[in-house]
């Protein structure tokens, strides 16, 4: 077993090569730093997170408006409009002679 291990170490071509010189190592390091700076920042971009929060808020708002509208419809069905018997209608017009007439009609008016 130890013989095999010894043989593999002796047969490794890289073991006999000298390491990277300082200049090459510095170049590789600089290239890596440049690439790291210019590369896109992963799958989640800087603007997508606030957009997701805003979308969720908009969905909640729409849901609330929908529920509110339905509740209002139910309330208006229950409560009749007040004082229907006192309905007034107003009309403004001019007589052929030029006199302006402002007339109010009452649903219930006995003089």
């Amino acid at each position, binding site marked *: 077993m130890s013989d095999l291990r010894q043989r593999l170490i002796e047969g490794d071509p890289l073991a006999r090569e000298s390491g990277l010189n300082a200049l090459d190592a510095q170049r590789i390091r600089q290239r890596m730093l440049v690439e790291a700076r210019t590369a896109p920042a992963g799958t989640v971009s800087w603007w997508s997170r606030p957009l997701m929060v805003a979308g969720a808020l908009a969905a909640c708002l729409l849901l609330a408006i929908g529920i509110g509208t339905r509740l209002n419809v139910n309330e208006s069905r229950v409560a009749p409009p007040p004082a229907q018997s006192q309905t007034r209608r107003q009309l403004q017009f001019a*007589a052929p002679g030029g006199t302006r007439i402002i007339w109010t009609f*009452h649903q*219930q008016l006995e003089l």
Partner: protein
Amino acid sequence: MRMWKTFSSLTIIIVLCAAAAQAQPRSNGFSVVLLVGDTQGTASGDGLPTAAGLRKALSDLKDFLPYKSYKVLDTAWLQGGETRMKGLEEQEYEVEVTNIDLIQPNIATRISGRLNIAFTLQEPGAAMNSSEEYGRLAQAASLEKERGQIQANLADLSAKYKEQHPAVVQLKARLAQVERSLRLARARKLIDSRFEMSPGETVVVGTSKLGGGDKALVVLLTAVAAGGK
């Protein structure tokens, strides 16, 4: 320098506009003539206003509205504000004329010389808004019920006792009180209008029952110009 000239020109224009607005004939007060129009009776000019402007307004009215005769109920002169006028069968009305420009100045109406008027005519004690009107209707219904009971009791008592009997007198007093309250509960705002008018102009403001009715209340409102026109 150029900016200064523009600013000076604008200032002069504004001052001239203000001076022109002040020079316009403004209202010196309002003449209010309350009439009742009737589909019955014959047309007669007895007791009707003689002023030319009022005559013309009445003539236009007669040609246009279905009422055959008109009778003056009351007249009033107002600087602005509120007054009481007599109507039919001792009914009184509260009449209010307000020059809105005095409360909320409006440069457009001021320059044109026209008056922005709010006119109301109501029975004394009328409700101020629709929710109060709703409450009054419920109150009136309750008072009508009470009045019916009192009248029934009064008929029974009158059959048994003389008119001077304390029970009859007491019940009659109660009936009068309920009828007063009922009249107050039924008090209505009959006219509530806003419109523009020129000094010297007569505007007809009226009210009647929707879909007809034998009678109508008509007001001839004249804004009297500062010169007395």
